[in-house]
């Protein structure tokens, strides 16, 4: 659930009102530090958490800053443009902007983009794009004109896609909008006409965009107050042709239709957008968070002193003008996951042991390589947009090459070395990749099954099913029940089909093969004692002192000291061997949703289902006899287990109902004469 936290004001100096008051807010290379460019002459570096400026730089009187200052992440220097053509580059030690490096270009600059993982990119007003290095090498080089006459850039943004920057800018000409995608990997520029569709009359007021591998999702806020989405392919089939893209309605009437100013839109993550503007024609301006997937308003905050229609989002902070002050509202959003939606998220009881979250975005660990070391900045941004590569620890590279060719023994040694190194924040993704690497070799080379290494990796407690898909399948294939048990205990997100496959295997595996395997018996420690089993009492119902359910009615030769509870002992001794019980307990402890489990349960043969039900009934008896409501095992009683008992209670009721159905057959006449033969 998304939530806005308490807002605070960043600058104590009042800014000029309107869009000229504030040119932009940009990240610096240090966490928590942002460059704020005031319209006019000043650039201030703020430390947001301390709410205080770290440095301030101004251009000379008569000069005017025309484009927000950015930080060159590769060098740590700051870059600003004044008077449209003059570049200034400086760092925090410099005091006077007049004395820093200066380069005058031959064309007017629209924006400088700088993001991590690439050099700053300069977008000129005529639509040309240059890398900063190339520009500085020859400042007076000729800049070509891309755009036609009267065509002006309205908005621009840059993304990293597969380690290469992709720049998008939107232009307007006579009320028509065009999107240009500049890729740097293939050096292509493609042009798209934004087709308005039905809503011809509305005027687009604001843009935002996010990237999803092959598409840029461009969102626009129109004057009718609705948010529209347009998908633009990053790599067009035919780059030369002018293509049309149609927009579709994403959110209806998020701001009042006739709002003149102070309207802005920014995408927060793949499901959430922030909208600035008055929700109703008469109301004050508001900052609202919308969930686009469920079309719901998550939260909103009123800005009674008005705002300027500018909204920036970095890390966990939203920046906007509130009245005349730059205001920061921290924004938090739980990672939404299917597991969370289905209530399967496990909440670790002692936070000290697991500092690494179980759930990670699948995209982070796979396809994008390894996440940034500098992940403290913004995990969400990193997950979505950061594609830069930091140098992985050397032990890791060593390990990867070992995995590719060396023997299992060598891999174990390397793995030990690797695991001994201090854990980095993205440790879980690295471990996941090691497992994938091992499994990759396993698939190409079936005899290679580095069981010990895999077990060791699972025991790092950071893996989940989604981090290493294929691991449990491989273990199922090898009938490696010990590893499956470990996975069931550790992974919070096992799909129900795999859970069912495990159940099927655990029920069908022969006792002999179980005997040879080494299984964690912790969950069945107290029912393995045969002496204890003898003590199990009967729990049948007696009516008027008579046991109505006793089965052996015609045992004529009962032993003198045989007590009726002998018959009941059958049901209270464990119907499966302790090792199998331990495996079944692992299944029962794993998280699953009935809805997804049921289709797979049908695949289990009847005799195994019966065995499983017998075991469940045994557990039920165990639970009801036990004072502290513990399931068999060492763990202290928890309310959860009491819940389990109540679930088993339901099973018992169902059993009873079945029994009743059986008895219904008896005739219900009031009087009859029958023949009874006693032997």
């Amino acid at each position, binding site marked *: 659930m998304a939530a806005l936290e308490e807002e605070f004001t960043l600058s104590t100096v009042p800014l000029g009102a309107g869009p000229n008051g504030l040119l932009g807010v940009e990240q610096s290379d240090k966490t928590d530090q942002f460059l704020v460019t005031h319209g006019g002459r000043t650039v201030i570096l703020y430390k947001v958490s301390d709410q205080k400026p770290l440095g301030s730089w101004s251009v000379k009187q008569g000069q005017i800053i025309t484009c927000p200052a950015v930080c060159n992440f590769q060098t740590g220097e700051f870059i600003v443009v004044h008077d449209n053509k003059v570049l200034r580059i400086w760092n925090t030690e410099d005091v006077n902007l007049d004395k820093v490096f200066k380069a005058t270009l031959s064309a007017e600059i629209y924006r400088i983009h700088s993001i991590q993982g690439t050099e700053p990119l300069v977008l000129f007003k005529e639509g040309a794009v240059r890398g900063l290095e190339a520009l500085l090498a020859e400042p007076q080089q000729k800049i070509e004109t891309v755009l036609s006459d009267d065509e002006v850039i309205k908005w621009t943004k840059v993304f990293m896609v597969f380690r290469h920057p992709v720049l998008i800018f939107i232009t307007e000409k006579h009320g028509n909008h065009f999107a240009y995608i500049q890729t740097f990997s293939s050096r292509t520029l493609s042009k798209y006409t934004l087709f308005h569709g039905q809503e011809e009359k509305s005027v687009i007021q604001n843009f935002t965009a996010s990237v999803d591998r092959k598409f840029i999702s461009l969102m626009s806020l129109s004057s009718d107050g609705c948010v529209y989405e347009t998908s633009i392919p990053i790599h067009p089939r035919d780059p030369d042709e002018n293509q049309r893209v149609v927009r579709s309605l994403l959110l209806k009437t998020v701001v009042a239709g006739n709002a003149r100013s102070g309207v802005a839109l920014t995408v927060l993550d793949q499901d959430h957008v922030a909208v600035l503007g008055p929700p109703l024609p008469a109301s004050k301006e508001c900052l609202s968070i919308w969930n686009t997937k469920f079309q719901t308003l998550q939260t909103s905050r009123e800005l009674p002193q008005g705002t300027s229609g500018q909204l920036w989002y970095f890390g966990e902070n939203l920046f906007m003008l509130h009245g005349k002050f730059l205001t920061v509202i921290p924004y938090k959003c739980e990672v939404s996951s299917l597991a969370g939606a289905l209530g399967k998220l496990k909440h670790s009881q002692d936070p000290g042991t697991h500092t690494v979250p179980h759930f990670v975005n699948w995209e982070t660990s796979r396809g994008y390589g390894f996440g940034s070391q500098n992940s403290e900045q913004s995990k969400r941004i990193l997950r979505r947009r950061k594609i830069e590569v930091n140098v992985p620890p050397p032990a890791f590279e060593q390990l990867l090459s070992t995995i590719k060719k060396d023997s299992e023994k060598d891999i174990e040694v390397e793995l030990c070395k690797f695991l001994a190194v201090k854990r980095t924040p993205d440790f879980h993704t690295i471990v996941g990749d090691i497992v994938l690497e091992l499994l990759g070799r396993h698939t190409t080379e079936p005899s290679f099954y580095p069981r010990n290494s895999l077990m060791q990796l699972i025991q790092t407690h950071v893996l989940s099913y989604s981090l290493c898909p294929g691991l449990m399948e491989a273990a199922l294939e090898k009938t490696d029940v010990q590893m499956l048990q470990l996975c069931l205990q550790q992974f919070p997100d096992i799909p129900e089909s795999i859970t069912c496959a495990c159940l099927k295997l655990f029920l069908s595996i022969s006792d002999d093969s179980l005997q040879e395997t080494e299984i964690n018996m912790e969950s069945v420690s107290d029912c393995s004692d045969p002496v204890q089993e003898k*003590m*199990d*009492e*009967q*729990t*049948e*119902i*007696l*009516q*008027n*002192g*008579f*046991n*109505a359910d*006793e089965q052996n*009615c*015609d045992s*004529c*030769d*009962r032993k*003198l000291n045989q*007590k*009726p*509870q002998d018959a009941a002992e059958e049901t209270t001794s464990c119907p499966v061997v302790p090792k199998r019980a331990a495996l079944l307990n692992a299944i029962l402890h794993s998280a699953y949703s009935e809805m997804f489990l049921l289709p797979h349960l049908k695949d289990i043969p009847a005799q195994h289902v019966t065995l499983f039900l017998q075991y469940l009934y045994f557990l039920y008896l165990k639970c*009801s*006899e*036990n*004072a*502290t*409501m513990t399931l068999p095992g060492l763990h*202290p*009683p928890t*309310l959860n287990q*009491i819940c389990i*008992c*109540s679930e088993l*209670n*339901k099973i018992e*009721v*169902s059993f009873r*109902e079945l029994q009743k159905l059986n008895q219904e057959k*008896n*005739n*219900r*006449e*009031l*009087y*009859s*004469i*029958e*023949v*009874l*033969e*006693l*032997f």
Partner: protein
Amino acid sequence: MGEFKVHRVRFFNYVPSGIRCVAYNNQSNRLAVSRTDGTVEIYNLSANYFQEKFFPGHESRATEALCWAKGQRLFSGGLNGEIIEYDLQALNIKYAMDAFGGPIWSMAVSPCGSQLLVGCEDGSVKLFQITPDKIQFERNFDRQKSRILSLSWHPSGTHIAAGSIDYISVFDVKSGSAVHKMLVDRQYMGVSKRKCIIWGVAFLSDGTVISVDSAGKVQFWDSATGTLVKNHLIANADVQSIAVSDQEDSFVVGTAEGTVFHFQLVSVTSNSSEKQWVRTKPFQHHTHDVRAVAHSPTALISGGTDTHLVIRPLMEKVEVKNYDAALRKITFPHRRLISCSKKRHLLLFQFAHHLELWRLGSTVATGKNGDTLPLSKDADHLLHLKTKGPENIICSCISPCGSWIAYSTTSRFFLYRLNYEHDNISLQRVSKMPAFLRSALQILFSEDSTKLFVASNQGSLHIIRLLEGSFKHLHTFQPQSGTVESMCLLAISPDGNWLAASGTSAGVHVYNIKHLKLHCTVPAYNFPVTALAIAPNTNNLVIAHSDQQPLPNDKTLLYNPLPPTNESDVIRRRTAHAFKISKIYKPLLFMDLLDERTLVAVERPLDDIIAQLPPPIKKKKFGT
């Protein structure tokens, strides 16, 4: 062993009365149960939950409260405004005393057992001193606005909690004044009910008052400040009863939905000393209101409108895994309600206020095991005999020849002579029965229907000779000096020479009828006798005890041990080899041989009883 024709009788339309109160006595391990018809039953929990004593009901004596006092004295209070003490030896009412406060709704004995508190309709709480042979009114507490429905003493005896309508009062016993008044929220699921009735309160030693009420709440109050500490909403209907264990670490509540909830004081985390009350186990053994609960050291006991007494052992408290560890459901009285005339194939059914006489049908067909034979004549309802007065029938009997019917209430003994002329029956009451026969506990006719044996509640046994239309008192066996224990069970040998009689705890006495003297006494056994019979031809006495264990004695020659038997539940037929067990029957209330090859079995399916109860509160069940 052979083939029998079995008359399966399911037309005995007996419905037990609902349970109103239960009271558990820790010292004697006995449980007193009162029913809506005023019957009070005593169960011996040590003797396999045998119902060893009972006090017959009375139409005007609806008991609303029941409690044990010091010295195992039993008191009850009812809607007629009387406090009654029961004589557990002589099995009669010792005295009844009007409390002068209108109907009595609640009752509590002080922790030391010497003071009795009653809560009345007029809002008064009255304190009585229990003297060795009576009770004496001491004083009133501050009068409350409305009826006092529940009472509980603080274990120190200094304060009491009284549940009324919409509020709970805490009284100081010394001054008799209300210290706190704790108002209970009427809200029920957001809707304001008209009234919130406090059905039960329990005062714990730490000053906590637990209340249960008609809005489905279990609430914890701090009696020192008069504030609500915790609230559990557990039912959509009334929570009607509460009982706390002696250790105060667990308590049980019963709801109108038939659910019993167990609450336990458990540690908040596994190794912390901080404890809190947690609802641990729900039990659904009842279909109707659970009007009363009790908490013995080892079991949760509950009873209510559906007439079952349910004893649910707490597995953690049971050390020996025997019958005590099994869930018990007791529905039927542990005594005979049916008698049979073998000669005329008649059955006499005893109800609370009337007797029914039925003639069994007949068949000429034969068949093999399991066949139902076509009837040539169906069973007939011959007679419906209503008692006069408000008292319940204690016992009844029809003679083997079918010509005599006898029954007894607390104040009178009735004997009727039946005449059969073709299909017509005429009934003639034998007048001037002697007064000493009243309150008979057991009536038996000799096999030849010439003698009537009556066990009175004073411990004596009377023998009456029956003549055509009249009678003659033949002899009275007086109880042995020093004992006043009444005889509950009688058995006569088929040849008419021997009479066996047994009380609740002493041994079985065997009398010689020819010489009218005591022949011998079978020594007492730890467990009470539940059934007696003398075998034909051999004159062996067979005794069944409530522990369901065999007991060989000098008069019996047993080849095999007795199977688990109770007086009414199992076909019991001894042969030289073994006991035969058949399990095709519903709960059996009666079984007898009409002749060598014919059995009569009276079944009472539980479903038929439930069908006659008022409909339960509708509740969504799992899977429906």
